[in-house]
């Protein structure tokens, strides 16, 4: 009833979670519109999992408040649980049981009769291409199959809001693409997806809105394009035939542009970050005026890696480490 009035799937104000002396989440405020993919991007230990665990009613915030699908996180936790599903970062199904048994088990827990639960399980197994493995214990599944059964267990009934904690960490590219397709299809059918990731490419590919979190604080928020734009227009790369030409160009660039270019000796190229496109065009023009021979040149969009570097002063770690005990 009242949740229809709200346009936001998640509205959080100043959430804080403290573990001992560690402010794992330190004043996070979020607004996630319904029907989008919200990408929560940050390195290990940034507070992603802790935030998700609070929003999924698993942890009580020490400070701040939040509503999920219009229900108060603390006062109306049971209604929140009615509208969400959580796929945790680790096992979110029982590894000792088969895939089919897991889905029947969840089906029974959400209130289906035995018969309905079985029918639903078979439907999902077919859709997620797990029919052949349906009778095998989940612990014998491959990484990609594991992730698919994890997500299938989360949509036994369609949640309004689906939390996915690092859904593709450790997956090979093919399995990762399968998970991405599933997420896109879910959103197309009206589910709001809140996912955490440490992969910049993933946020770039999937998320309509990206929140960047570091050390418990939201340090930037926007669309992929907006985040990239705040860093500058991208970078200009110019290739040369030989090093002499490159050195001439380096002097010209240094005079024309704010930032000094970086040379790649093997490629015989210069790369320089650009604030505005017009300046890049002007710099190229200057090279022609000075008769510097260039092979080719190109402009590239900034990567999210660069975004992160600019925002936090360090690159996000690429490999998943220990994020147990909800202390991420």
């Amino acid at each position: 009833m009242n949740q229809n009035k709200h346009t936001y799937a998640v509205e959080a104000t100043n959430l804080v979670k403290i573990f001992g002396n560690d402010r794992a989440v330190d004043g996070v405020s979020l607004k996630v519109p319904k029907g989008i993919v919200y990408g929560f991007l940050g390195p290990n230990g940034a507070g992603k999992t802790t935030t998700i665990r609070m929003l999924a009613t698993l942890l009580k915030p020490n400070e701040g408040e939040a509503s999920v699908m219009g229900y108060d996180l603390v006062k109306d936790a049971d209604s929140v649980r009615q509208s969400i599903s959580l796929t945790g970062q680790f096992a979110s199904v029982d590894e000792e049981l088969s895939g089919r048994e897991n889905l029947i088990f969840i089906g029974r827990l959400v209130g289906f009769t035995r018969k309905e639960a079985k029918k639903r399980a078979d439907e999902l197994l077919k859709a997620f291409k797990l029919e052949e493995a349906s009778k095998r214990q989940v612990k014998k599944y491959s990484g990609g199959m594991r992730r698919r059964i994890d997500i299938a267990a989360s949509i036994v009934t369609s949640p309004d809001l689906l939390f996915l904690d690092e859904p593709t960490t450790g997956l090979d590219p093919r399995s990762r693409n399968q998970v991405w397709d599933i997420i896109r299809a879910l959103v197309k059918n009206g589910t709001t997806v809140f996912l955490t990731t440490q992969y910049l490419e993933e946020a770039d590919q999937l998320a309509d809105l990206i929140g960047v979190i570091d050390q418990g604080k939201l340090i930037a928020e926007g669309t992929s394009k907006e985040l990239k734009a705040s860093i500058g227009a991208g970078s200009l790369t110019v290739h040369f035939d030989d090093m002499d030409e490159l050195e001439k160009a380096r002097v010209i660039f240094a005079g024309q542009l704010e930032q000094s270019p970086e040379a790649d000796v093997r490629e015989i190229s210069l790369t320089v970050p650009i604030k505005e496109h017009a300046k890049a065009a002007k710099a190229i023009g200057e090279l022609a005026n000075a008769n510097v021979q260039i092979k080719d040149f190109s402009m590239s969009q900034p990567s999210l890696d660069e975004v992160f570097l600019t925002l936090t002063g360090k690159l996000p770690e690429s490999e998943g480490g220990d994020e147990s005990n909800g202390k991420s």
Partner: protein
Amino acid sequence: MANHEERTFEEAITNITRPKKPSAISASATFAWRALLRIRYVPEQLFDVTVFPIIFLLMFTYLFGGAISGSTGEYLDFVLPGILVMTVAMITMYTGLDLNKDIEKGVFDRFRSLPIWRPAVLVGALFVDAVRYLIASTIMITLGYILGFRPEAGFIGVVLGVLLLLFFAFSLSWIWTMLGIIVRTEKALMAMSMMILFPLTFLSSVFVDPTTMPGWLQKFVDINPITFVVDAVRGLVHGTDATNDILMVLYISIGLILIFGPLTMYFFRNKN
């Protein structure tokens, strides 16, 4: 072909509304069903339920029987109810270990994010644990009978004794469920459980008559809950008057549930 696949996929993920949430009983039964399935996949987990009792019974009967009671036959009648209580009390700690494993692996998070009657997670598991205790009791009494154990109160006495023991074990389990939730690692939990269970089971009337012990030890043995359980079960099995012991066991059991049930649920809700 591809189109057809696409369609089943779309159909499978389109709006499936949530049915009414299951009743407390139905949710508990679902968790019990899961625990039974796990036994089917990992029958080894019944190992301690079946092998413990056999080893204990044979070891204590033939190792100490002659020394303590003069003959193994007489000692068997005395010690079997004791070892029965000890074995079942020992197995109760697996309740906590299983729960701890669920938490460590992450599947516990899924349970806690579901809109279900929350104690169902534990009640379902405890119900199946009762089945384990029953298996252990049956094995031990059957083996004892073969070795010459003769309960003087007959079959009814044995059934009543086992029922009382099951109730006590169920109550005792709430200590382990609480510890299973708050203790971080399985090893620490195991060590802690052992530290509680070993003194309780050995410093009791399980193996010998407490009147043979030094006075200071008797004082501990006399207030040890396990002693009450052993004496009550012994009384029921052999038809001697144990009304006071039985009442004490009931008080202790209800007390354990009243204290550790709510504590468990408190930590369950506020788990970090």
